[in-house]
């Protein structure tokens, strides 16, 4: 039923083994197993409430902050290490695994302070080093040319798309290995969306990217692998082309062709 197709040239970044997750008594994920590959874009699609965001948040233990939420079964391995082991410090984990949220939510500070925030809280003192990383991150997020003259302006003066790219730059500044994106383009206009998508495509070379999206076309455009979730279950997981052109499961086909969702 579940298709585990590995592209042989890429090592496994995140290995989810038989994971179940519940909020209180409601089970939102049941027995999920999938493998996310390094330097690939993996997208999670599915109707609202299917658990795709929850699974994403399991990867950096952000779910722990919600009361009564817990993993009931299974494990998540990153670099072959179970991240739910007691010895794992979630703070350290989150430094390695960056996250970009649905709403662009820069802090109400200057652009520079936003990008350097992660470094500041980690105790970086060297001003020149910070400057370097800030510039580098903004370059990578394709924002440098637009903001280099106004680094000390409030981040809220940027447009929505720029804000989202600023959030990506902020995430890049702490030098993660994996970037989780939770519907990063849902509140952006098509032009801004296109820019972010382009950015994601470029980031793929250096980072492993997992993206949750409502927009199936987007998944088709940017991702190498696609997972389709429905009611807390992983229905199908395969190369994007196969999912979109020749889905194995009826539900997948119905969703992609717009019969429900």
């Amino acid at each position: 039923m579940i298709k585990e197709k590995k592209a042989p040239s890429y090592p496994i970044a995140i290995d989810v083994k038989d994971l179940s997750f519940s909020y209180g008594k409601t089970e939102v994920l049941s027995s999920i197993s999938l493998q996310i590959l390094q330097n690939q874009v993996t997208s999670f699609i599915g109707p609202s409430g299917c658990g795709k965001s929850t699974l994403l948040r399991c990867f950096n233990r952000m779910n722990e902050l919600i009361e009564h939420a817990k993993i009931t079964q299974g494990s998540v391995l990153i670099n072959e290490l179970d991240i739910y082991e007691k010895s794992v410090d979630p703070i350290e984990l989150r430094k390695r695994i960056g996250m970009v949220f649905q709403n662009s939510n820069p802090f109400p500070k200057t652009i520079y302070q936003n990008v350097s925030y992660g470094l500041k809280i980690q105790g970086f003192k060297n001003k020149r080093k910070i400057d370097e990383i800030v510039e580098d991150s903004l370059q990578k997020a394709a924002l440098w040319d637009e903001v280099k003259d106004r680094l000390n302006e409030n981040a809220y003066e940027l447009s929505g798309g720029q804000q989202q790219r600023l959030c990506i730059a902020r995430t890049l500044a702490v030098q993660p290995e994996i970037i989780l994106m939770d519907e990063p383009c849902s509140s952006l206009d098509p032009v801004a969306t296109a820019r972010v998508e382009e950015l994601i495509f470029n980031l793929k070379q250096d980072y492993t990217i997992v993206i949750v999206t409502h927009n199936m076309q987007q998944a088709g455009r940017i991702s190498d692998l696609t997972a389709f979730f429905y009611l807390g279950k992983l229905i199908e997981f395969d190369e994007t082309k196969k999912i979109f052109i020749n889905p194995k499961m009826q539900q997948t086909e119905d969703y992609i062709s717009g019969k429900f969702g």
Partner: protein
Amino acid sequence: MMKDQRSQSNRFSSGNNRMVNLEKIVFGITRILTYVILFCACFIFWDIISKGSRKLFTDDGFINWSFLSESPQTLHVIEHNGEISKLSSDEYFKFKEELSDSAWDELNSRDEFTKVQKRLKANLVTATEVTSNEVQKSLLTSFIQDEQTEATEKFTYWMELLENASSHAPDFQVSSENMPYLVGRFILAFLDQTKLKYSLLETELSFFQALHYPKIDHLSSQSIQKIKLAYFNLLEEHLHKIWEAYIAEKKNLKENINDFLQSPSPTSFSTLESQIIGYMENPLLLKENSASLLEAITSDLQWIGSEHRIEVPSKDYAYSGGGIFPAIAGTILLVGGAMLIALMLGVCCAIFLSEYGKSGKFLSLVRLSILNLAGVPSIIFGLFGMGLFVIFLDWNVSILAGWFTLAFMVLPIVITASEESLRSIPKGFRESSLALGATKWTMIRTSVLPYAMPGILTSAILGVARVAGETAPIMFTAAFAMRSELPWEGLEHWTDFFFQGVMALPYHIYVISKIPQNEYTVDMQYGTALVFLILVFLLASLSFIIRSRLRRKFNW
């Protein structure tokens, strides 16, 4: 068709007259009541401002700085040369001094004064010579002997009374069982008399009385003997003490006499005069020969006094003169410190409640108790503060006790508002902070608290008005009715600053409303009330300005 429609164009007119009338009535009532409230509010403010400005502004329309910068004083209303003037104590005594200075100058130019001065000089010199040390020593010895003889006679009589009541005092009609009690009363009365005679010995005699009271209460022939011995010792020992005091006083007196004779002035005269009176009250000096001399001196002094001292009759009104500066300073100190403490405690509590606390029974219990705390009457906080801080922690009536009492009173406001404002910070800030590898505290410190600050300061604005206005909590814990010293004056050690009471505006209004009322106290009340209103307004607008600045800085 068209005609039909036109005839039906009125189908939206109201068919139900009752509902329309009800609507009108409700509208009328709500409107009238709103206007009544508006009128009351305007009246209160107009009343305070119009009456208070009589005190706050001078007749020429300038701000009355002395009202804002002086301590409360008694108001003296005097009539001088047909002119009525209102003077505070300081001004009144200064005025009197000026008058007597000019009278003294006039007196100085009169021949009579030179004559009196000469006579006084001669008499004073004789008086101090007559009472030279040697003579005085012999006087003292005979004086002690006289005292002892008198006491011996009394004690002998009492002892005989004790032993044989009927033979010595048949007219007493007292049975021999009651005699010891009666004699005991005699002894106590005798000691009281001696106390009156020698005021310098008052403490020693009281101590003596207390020490021997059991014996006096249960007299027997042995115990009365002991009391007699002890009393004689006391005289022997302490009459010398009076002697020493006298020597010192005499030295002092001689200096003062010289002062006066060399440079006669109202001040040196007053010093001399008061000393001579003390000198005369000393029983050791009241020997026949010096008594007439002293009398002559006194009459001369009296003459000089009456010639240059001018009485200025005045009507006195307590608390109605001077200003309210100590109260203003005290209120600012109380409000500032209490808000600082309340914000620190309240914000910590709010952080725990909104960020760390796991919802459950404990948290609802905490919330419930905070809500209940908000309903406690302020006088109860006053009593609580007195019990805990003033008495149990032994801070006495002090700023510190007032700070904590007031802080506890506004804590519910601060906690509720701060928690509300912490919760209103978007989830996104918290999540992105955590996702960037922040610990929970780092997240709170860097991306929650700064943005919640405007909301927390809103609570401070509410708190300031409450803290500044409450009388009851500070009545027992921090406020003095009258203290002319300012809080930063006369501190021996910097910690003393926290352990002193202060004056406060609301308590001052309370105090001047409790004393007998007249037009001057009313002016004072309204003046204080107006200053109080302005002060609260200024304090609140200060936090308002800080808040809007923060809002502008952290705008999202």
